[in-house]
């Protein structure tokens, strides 16, 4: 079964997405910030990374930038899961790092997130979709 790395600082949200994903049969690894997320990503090489942007210690954008420097990290599909407004500058900068997709937490249900992960993993099991 596919492994998803969920990098999310809000514990309630983290538990919520984990519940949904585990229910849908994914193995879920969680990380509360970008630093731990980056370490876990490189050491455990999940099938997909679900990444928040605004986080303590290391934010999602920095983590993604670092991740893309890694040979394996260049390939892994990343879904940005954010609370930000599409108007925000930072989000536009993140888009330049070619995530597979982005979802707004406030507009998507955990089911939507899970469906999107399945869709992306099905269409390109090893390469990021842009």
């Amino acid at each position, binding site marked *: 079964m596919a492994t998803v790395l969920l990098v999310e600082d809000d514990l309630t949200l983290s538990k*919520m997405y984990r519940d949904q994903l585990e229910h849908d049969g994914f193995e879920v690894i969680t990380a509360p910030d970008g630093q731990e997320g980056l370490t876990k990503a490189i050491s455990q090489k999940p099938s997909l990374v679900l990444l928040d942007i605004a986080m303590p210690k290391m934010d999602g954008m920095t983590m993604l930038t670092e991740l893309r420097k890694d040979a394996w990290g260049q390939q892994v599909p990343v879904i940005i899961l954010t609370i930000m407004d599409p108007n925000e500058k930072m989000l536009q900068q993140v888009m330049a790092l070619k995530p597979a997709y982005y979802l707004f937490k*406030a507009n998507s249900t955990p089911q939507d997130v899970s469906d999107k992960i399945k869709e992306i993993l099905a269409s390109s099991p090893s390469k990021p979709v842009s």
Partner: protein
Amino acid sequence: MPALSPRVRSFVGVAILVAFYFFAGKAGLTLASVNPSATIFWPPTGIAIGCLLLLGIRLWPAVFLGAFLVNITTAGSIFTTLGIATGNTLEAVIAVTLINRYANGRNTLETPGNLFRFFILAGVVSTAVSAFIGVSSLSLIGFAKWSDFQEVFLTWWLGDMGGALLVAPLIISWFNRPRFNFHLRHISEIAVVFFLLLLTTFVIFGGFLPLSVSNYSVDFLAVPFFLWIAFRFNQREVATALFLFAEIAVWGTLQGFGPFAKGASVGDSLLLLQAYLNVRAATMLMLSSVVIMHRNTEELARKSEEQYKTLVEMSPDAIVVMDLQTNITMLNKQAVSLVGFENAEEVLGKTAFSFIAPEDHQRTRENLAKLATVRRLTGIEYTIVRKDGTRFIASTSASVLVDQRGNPQGIIVVVRDVTHEKELDRMKDEFISVASHELRTPMAAIKGYLSMILSGRYGQISGDLQKPLVTVALSTDRLIQLVNDILSISRIETKRLKLTLTLFPLASVVDDIGSNLVPILRGKHLGFHNGVEKNVRVQADPQKVGQILTNLVGNALKFTDTGGISIASTEENERIVVLITDTGVGISKENQEKLFRKFQQVSSQQAGRPAGTGLGLYISRELAKAMGGDVWLVSSEVGKGSTFAVSLPKEGTTLAASVRQILTSQIHTATFLETQHPS
């Protein structure tokens, strides 16, 4: 005289005028030489003109009565007396009517132009009427020979003219400006100059010295004193001096003294003298009015300058005046301290460029060039460098100063430090941004868990629980939308909207929206038709256009129960217009007016429908406007449905180009992607 009724006052006025007129007439007639009724100096003309001008033409019967009494007790018959009195009355009435109409009425002496008209209308025209009627009356009855008509007419005319030019100004100037300056210096100077003038007049006309006895032409000796009076005082003093001078001159000439007592007869001498006095009166009064006008202009200019100086110093904003080379020529205290200096002298003469940050120099030069044609530029921001090198952002308004011919002479700039305002704006934006993040996170959790509960993820939901849970879910969506909307409005209103202008086909955005709405459309059994032309492309931010169309189509869905929604496009004035038509409940006329206001919802139609935030249409319209388009209601009928329209600049039009230029340079932060939108 507050105790007297207007009628009594008029009667007293008339009686005084009649008496005054009568005695002045009698005095004047003592100078009659060519005919007992025709005198070389007729003060009553001036009394009549002066009094009727100040008190009103309705007092003319007093003039008539006075003239009648003077003449009936002098010579001639009832007929000639009536004729002469009529002529004298007409003279005053004509003079006053014309002065009121063409020479500024009782203020006729105050400007050279009006004074000139006074000379012509009162001095020349009206007096000729009186002389003509008077002499004709005498000649008709035989009191004067027709062969003497010309001589008697001339005497009469000049005599009346003397009254009009020497006596009327005296009355008008004293009664029109009755306040007198009682300062010792003023009175002393008047006393001195009048003493010297009178002394000189006696030297010329008095017969004390050989000069006047030998009839030397030394009348010019009085000129310096007239000039003195004209330059230092007002017309009241000039008119008084002229009157006194004239009285002494007439008296002296009658005694055979002075430059004019050389004529073949006393009549000839007086005629010459009168001509001289009339010209002297006209020139001196004219000079006086020019001096007064100049004095008033100076006073006005001084006052105006004083006002502006005070305004400039009192202004909370910095004000800087510079020449066309941007060298600072004047600045207020606020401007001096704004750039960190102590004294204006340290800043004067420096160029404005020495205070503008180097990176803004090029833009400053461009704006200066622009200013030359538009003459005024407001709200331009520059980074200003203080004396100590620290910087701040200033908002400036510049205006070109021009001379009378419209040639630019300098530039006046109002400068305001907006650092604080900018900081407040930034803090407000940051607060709203942080607050919305903080609000959204728990809302996302509520929404997420609710959806999982509703999907049965945590066990079967009883029928009783299903309905309230759905309501909670809908309210959560509404709350999320509200936070999003407030953030949008904050961005729009602080002009911090970020637009990414792209050229893209509208039909694809409409298709996306349609496919997102499929579940709802199916649930309500509604039709959806996308009739937008496939090849039509607009210049806009696709994400914002999606937001606008989602809002409009969402509204249509919310208020439509049968039929469906169709979307079409047309072209109009370089814009593509998208029409969203529904077969819903429609909007009443009164609600149509409120549609685009903030927090307005069509209340009567809310029952049983999902509630909105009341911000959607307002935001949609503002977003469309920010991109050079608009949103409006085309038509709506209760029970039949509504049609809303969105317009956006069409690709490749002049409008699109200018919107792009404005957006990328000024209002919102906008970027333009030349590449095609991937949709």
